[in-house]
């Protein structure tokens, strides 16, 4: 039973079309010119190489990494919706270590910064992982709640231990040059894009070609069969997936600090951790799909700024398109699985 290869792409694109159509209707109802608004959005996201690289792709990097993490978890049957918190944990750790490494050579310092961010993200999710293993606490709840703790931690850090040296603003000092990732000439696009793309490729490879990837998938799809027939340690593999998931979100926080903001702020993330869930859902668990879907959402967010500037439409309106797109994807999935059930019943 082979499905044609175009179908997996068709559905998300159709959903996106529906999302944008609803957005256009929304604009008309509110009295904005939909052509002008959407045109400004497209120009802002794709209008020039600079706009595409510095706007769309820069935003796509954290989305890609966190969405990959979410997908790794989902495939193994764990729902990590704490990407936002793990992102902040990574960002705090990256800023903290980055500020101390001014004397290191550039490559070593950035590597150390990113490595620490990865570890911090994994540690942040280690608590939910342990609670799940030991007491069966639902990771959906514990990862979500730790988001608030992470935000509070950032607030504390930028007003306490990591506050800039003049103690006026709630932010950290700027990272030394050694701890910053290089950018592509003439843009603000940093090397994190290569990291995110390689992570997608590795995830694709692991799930497609390795026994570990298959085992994670089996644990997610049929935990009882995985235990009884496959002899797998279901809980342990789930916890492992959760750690990887957190590590990727932590890495996203690290690249954001080391590649974009160069400092720690309270509102470093415009909700990347949550938008990334939408990115992952649109990509329907495919690592390569996540690359496209993250760029798309990056474009929506980048375009939203341009739209506000050029057409006077509030940028948050873009969330309407995002939400409609996701609902359309989920609905199509639910409908097609119901049809399958009826056939096999």
């Amino acid at each position: 039973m082979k499905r044609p290869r175009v179908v997996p792409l068709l559905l998300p694109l159709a959903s996106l079309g529906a999302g944008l159509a609803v957005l256009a209707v929304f604009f008309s109802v509110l009295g904005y010119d939909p052509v002008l608004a959407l045109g400004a959005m497209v120009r802002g996201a794709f209008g020039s190489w600079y706009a595409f690289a510095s706007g769309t792709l820069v935003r796509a990097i954290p989305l890609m990494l966190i969405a990959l993490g979410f997908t790794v978890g989902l495939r193994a049957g764990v729902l990590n919706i704490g990407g936002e918190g793990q992102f902040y944990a990574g960002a705090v750790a990256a800023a903290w270590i980055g500020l101390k490494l001014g004397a290191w050579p550039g490559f070593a310092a950035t590597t150390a910064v990113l490595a620490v961010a990865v570890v911090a993200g994994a540690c942040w999710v280690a608590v939910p992982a342990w609670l799940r293993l030991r007491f069966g606490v639902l990771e959906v709840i514990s990862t979500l709640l730790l988001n608030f703790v992470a935000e509070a931690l950032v607030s504390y850090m930028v007003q306490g231990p990591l506050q800039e040296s003049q103690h006026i603003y709630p932010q950290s000092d700027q990272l030394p040059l050694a701890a910053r990732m290089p950018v592509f000439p003439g843009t603000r696009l940093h090397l994190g894009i290569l990291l995110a793309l390689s992570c997608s490729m590795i995830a694709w490879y692991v799930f497609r070609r390795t026994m570990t990837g298959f085992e994670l998938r089996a644990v997610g799809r049929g935990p009882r069969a995985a235990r009884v027939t496959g002899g797998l340690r279901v809980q342990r593999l789930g916890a492992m997936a959760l750690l990887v998931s957190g590590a990727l979100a932590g890495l996203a926080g690290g690249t954001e600090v080391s590649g974009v903001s160069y400092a720690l702020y309270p509102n470093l993330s415009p909700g990347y951790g949550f938008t990334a869930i939408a990115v992952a859902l649109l990509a329907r668990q495919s690592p390569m799909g996540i690359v496209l879907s993250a760029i798309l959402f990056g474009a929506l967010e980048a375009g939203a700024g341009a739209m506000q500037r050029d057409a006077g439409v509030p940028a948050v309106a873009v969330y309407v398109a995002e939400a409609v797109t996701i609902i359309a994807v989920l609905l199509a999935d639910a409908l097609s699985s119901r049809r399958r059930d009826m056939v096999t019943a």
Partner: protein
Amino acid sequence: MTGAPILQLRDIHKRFGTVQALTGAGLIARAGEVHALLGENGAGKSTLMHVASGMVAPDTGEILIDGAPRRLRSPRDARAAGIGMVHQHFTSIPALTVAENIALFAGWAVRPRELAVRVTALAERLNLPLDPVARAGTLPVALLQRLEIVKALAADARVLLLDEPTGVLAPAEADELLARARAFAQSGGAVVLITHKLDEALRGADRVTVLRRGRVVLEQAVVGLGSRELTQAMLGDATLVDEPAPAAHASDDAPRRVHVAGLEVARESGLGMAVRQVSLGIRAGEIVAVAGIEGSGQRELLRAIAGVLPVFRGTREVTQPLAFVPEDRTTEGLIPELSVTENVVLGLGRPASWVKRGRLDWKAARQRTAEMLSEFEVRSAGPEAPAASLSGGNQQKLIIARALERAPAVIVAENPTRGLDVQATRAVHDRLRDAAGRGVAVLLYSSDLDEVMMLGQRIAVMARGTLSEAPAHASRAEIGALMLAGRAG
């Protein structure tokens, strides 16, 4: 004593997706009659009964109640029309009492005090005594089933549909159930007994309808019928009578593959012991079949030996590799959404030849899977087809093929042919016997006593967590007595 037809199903057609489940099937249930509905798995028995009980709407066809056409849009409609269905799987809510379960099902909205009186009166009238205040979850299986029957009859049913009612019962309990069904018919009701056991149909019914591939192939009085005719009707021309077990041929000096002593295993719920002080040895080439009423500890015993459940106390020595064939094919044996190949990869794990240093060679796995499918005559759309698309029999053949692919020293199988038709059952039995012939130690349990007697070279009986070995050539009655040992009521 036969009266007017109460329920008639005429020329029923029903299609599910690509599967034509019923092609002009029908059934007539007359007052005063016990009617057996026979057929292989997938013959359409359940679909026909679902039509009769209002759960499935037929594509075309007529349903007549007392000679008048009637549309049954829901189980509620069917109940109002006097049709009571007892499902194979119990539908009582364990946390509620007997009386509450009955009230819930029959839609009685009454005060608790009145309810107890009404339930007691009902059970007495039906001559099916039950304690109205006992919680359903505490009832033994036979009483749970009695509760199902009382529920079905509570709404004054005149037609009782019993779906494989004896599967979970001990032989004596099954006889009792058939007697109750007879009594209900004699009081003017009609009983439809769905079964795949020929002797039950011959013993318990007045008339029999045999379905094959969605059509009625035989409909006549039982008198003068024998199991040969029924088998022929069910199977068509294929004659498939399973060979009885050969005498134990495993020699006494064959190496011991399984050895447990003083084994204790906790219940899966964690409350109390399911297996108490069990000792058992199995040599290479032996088939040991375990009989027991459900819940007697056989499941836990086999799972502990297979290493799926932890041993609480005692010694367990099992030669590896061991292959485990779980009873629940679609939640434990297979992952239905995954492909056949993926399920083979799952079952063989990391030692498989297609795993090299953690890397998975899907092409090699697919190739080997395709070979296994043809060697074991598993009918499927190929190695890439989802396991869910296979029929139950082919799923089980796949599981057995996969188990043998490990070149096991020991096979542990739970109810290896539950829900399979005669041909698939035969295929599974042949594979298990072949394996034993090649020196595999086989341990299985079955809720079908015939299967135990057919397959087992040694027969052991679990009763209340203890194991006793039946003497060689023990009769059904002797084994049945052992199954009930130490059991109240």
